[in-house]
């Protein structure tokens, strides 16, 4: 609403004009600061004879990396070395997130158990592991591998064929065979079938009200089809079992102490936080919901699937996302225990080339990509499960 007569508002009292002034001042302030910093930086770089730009990525890296998922040698370029680091970060975060969600869920449910002992122990675990810095935990597990665990000759045998010693975790794996390829293809087929089956079952239930035992049929599909593929492929059973020859193990798959220590530290630390998230989610669903669902005659599996979980997940997913991101960001601490993740490789690159700005910028961009893509995915998921209001 405008005042009827043309009242003259003094400039300093007109919020709209003031807003423009403030924003102008902010832009000028930020602009001047950036100009100052950039000018200083350029002058410093010129004085130290450092060229800017990313051309260093094509130069020869000349350092070895202990663990690589793709082929890499010291003769490869810095770009390739950074790719190796990137993949290492990716794999440790991925495995870490999967294990953390599993362990965290178990702990969160245990925390609410009616069994006093289990609930207490779980509470103690959560409190202790949350309150000790992740870096300290990583150092501890690293020392655990190198100082406390025995050498390969006295390796601890956790299960038959699984050994733990100061060379890492070593276990048997099946020898690659054509049969496994069939099994994987069959698994993919089962997943596709399941997807269509689910749509068909939903449509049938909507039309006729008949409930299709989707879970049991699905379980049969995903187990039987790959087994069939494996059997058709010749039913290979050959295993590559680790055997002690001389001072080390031969055969099997060995995972380095650095990787295992990093994974152990990240999972045990983050699981404590995930447990709290899961607990809060379960507690957020009122007792009445469960009772109401049971009283309208749903079976306990349906109560969980149709009533409890959809509501609990709505509370769990957002904080769970941020815990997953925390795990990914914390995996950068690998640099402290010598696992060649992205930050560690980038750090070596910075030291060797002196391209500090580009190196740090690369680190930031990589983690921003992780963060933004994860939160984009989670926003999509969140929208999908959000309450549909009228």
């Amino acid at each position, binding site marked *: 609403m405008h005042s009827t007569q043309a009242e003259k508002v003094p400039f300093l009292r007109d919020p709209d004009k003031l807003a423009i002034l403030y924003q102008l001042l902010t832009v000028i302030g930020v602009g001047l600061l950036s100009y100052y910093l950039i000018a200083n930086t350029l002058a410093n770089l010129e004085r130290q004879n450092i060229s800017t730009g990313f051309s260093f990525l094509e130069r020869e890296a000349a350092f070895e990396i202990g663990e690589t998922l793709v082929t890499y040698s010291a003769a490869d370029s810095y770009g390739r070395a950074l790719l190796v680091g990137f993949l290492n970060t990716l794999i440790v975060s991925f495995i870490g997130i999967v294990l953390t969600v599993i362990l965290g869920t178990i702990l969160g449910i245990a925390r609410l158990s009616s069994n006093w002992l289990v609930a207490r122990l779980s509470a103690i675990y959560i409190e202790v592991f949350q309150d*000790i810095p992740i870096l300290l935990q990583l150092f501890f597990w690293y020392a655990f591998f190198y100082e406390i665990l025995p050498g390969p000759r006295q390796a601890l045998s956790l299960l038959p064929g699984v050994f733990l010693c100061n060379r890492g975790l070593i276990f048997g794996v099946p020898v690659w065979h054509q049969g496994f390829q069939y099994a994987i293809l069959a698994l993919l087929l089962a997943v596709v079938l399941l997807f269509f089956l689910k749509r068909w079952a939903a449509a049938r239930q909507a039309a006729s009200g008949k409930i299709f035992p989707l879970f049991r049929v699905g379980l049969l599909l995903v187990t039987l089809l790959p087994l069939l593929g494996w059997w058709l492929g010749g039913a290979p059973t050959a295993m590559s079992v680790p055997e002690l020859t001389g001072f080390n193990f031969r055969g099997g798959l060995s995972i380095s102490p650095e990787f295992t220590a990093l994974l152990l530290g990240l999972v045990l630390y983050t699981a404590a936080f995930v447990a709290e998230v899961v607990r809060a989610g379960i507690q957020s669903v009122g007792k009445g919901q469960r009772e109401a669902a049971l009283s309208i005659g749903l079976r306990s599996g349906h109560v969980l699937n149709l009533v409890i979980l959809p509501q609990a997940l709505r509370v769990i997913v957002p904080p769970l996302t941020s815990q997953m991101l925390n795990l990914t960001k914390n995996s950068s601490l690998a640099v402290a225990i010598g696992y060649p993740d992205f930050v560690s490789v980038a750090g070596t690159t910075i030291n060797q080339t002196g391209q500090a700005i580009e190196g740090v910028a690369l680190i930031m961009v990589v983690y921003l990509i992780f963060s933004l893509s994860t939160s984009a995915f989670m926003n999509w998921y969140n929208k999908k499960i959000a309450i549909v209001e009228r």
Partner: protein
Amino acid sequence: MPQTAPPRSAADVRPPVTNIGVLGWIRANLFNGPLNSLLTLTVLYLLWQALPPFINWALVDSLWFSSSEECKAAGGACWSVITANIRFILFGFYPHDLQWRPLLGICILIALLLYSQNRRHWRPSLAWAWLIGLFSMGVLLMGGIFGLTAVESTNWGGLPLTLLLSVFGLTAAYPVGVVLALGRQSRMPVVKSFCVVYIELIRGVPLISLLFMSSVVFPLFLPEGVTVNKILRAQMAIILFTAAYIAEVVRGGLQGMDRGQYEAAKSLGLNYLQTMRLVILPQALKIVIPPSVSILISAFKDTSLVVIIALYDLLKTTQTALSDPKWMGFSAEAYLFVALIYFVCCWFMSNYSRRLEKELDTGR
């Protein structure tokens, strides 16, 4: 003749022994159902396997004040690695004769924390007490005035450095965080977008990349000849990092404010600054005190990351003590000790935040 049973008082009818007392409790909490019984037995078995050997190692067979040779010969825990190096672990390279100064500083800080714990002590004068306390902590560490010998900041280390980085970090980050949160809520698009970009950028990257930046990139930003010492640079990185997280917490508080509060303030004729200072922030900041304590906890834990840029905080001094060939191989004991320090501090803070949450949760 009809006979009636003599009336029995309620006291005579007692529940079965297995439903009350210790037995009843055990039944109700540990053995209610086959699954729970199995679980209890499994857990008890595992505890039986793990606890006695651990107690043997940590307490029965342990050595507390011995030389490293004796430790290497014995089978138990070697706590001597801590008792022999305690001053180095706690104070780093701080001159030996002057270590009472950081100790006094820590005592002042703990006294202030304990005093501020009680909400009845929250008066404006407390803020001054904190200011004076932090200032005297700085003076005690630095020296150079009041007849105290000056100590170079390169010699600071151990627990005082850890506390310094986290407490000063949070104190300085709080105002910045509040400004960022207000900026993010602002209706001015330019200001808002700057704040959003800053907050999301910082929250998206790990602290370690900022610490790298402070140690290798920041010197390039400065004009020729100007240098900023390493601790201050790390401190700035921690402040910039923490501020973004505080901003998000404060934003939560601001969003929890009722629209009516803004409208009422406006109708009283208050301008933006007055509205914020007198009406909104006092209420919003009260809501966010418990999550702010959580931020203090993570800031306290995160300071351990300065190890990676080679500052001698509590963790780094411990590692240095362990790199002495005499004490090599006793990492478990030393790390357990440091973990205990961190745990006690964090546990104290998180308990406090939980209690505060209950106390502040009035009405609604």
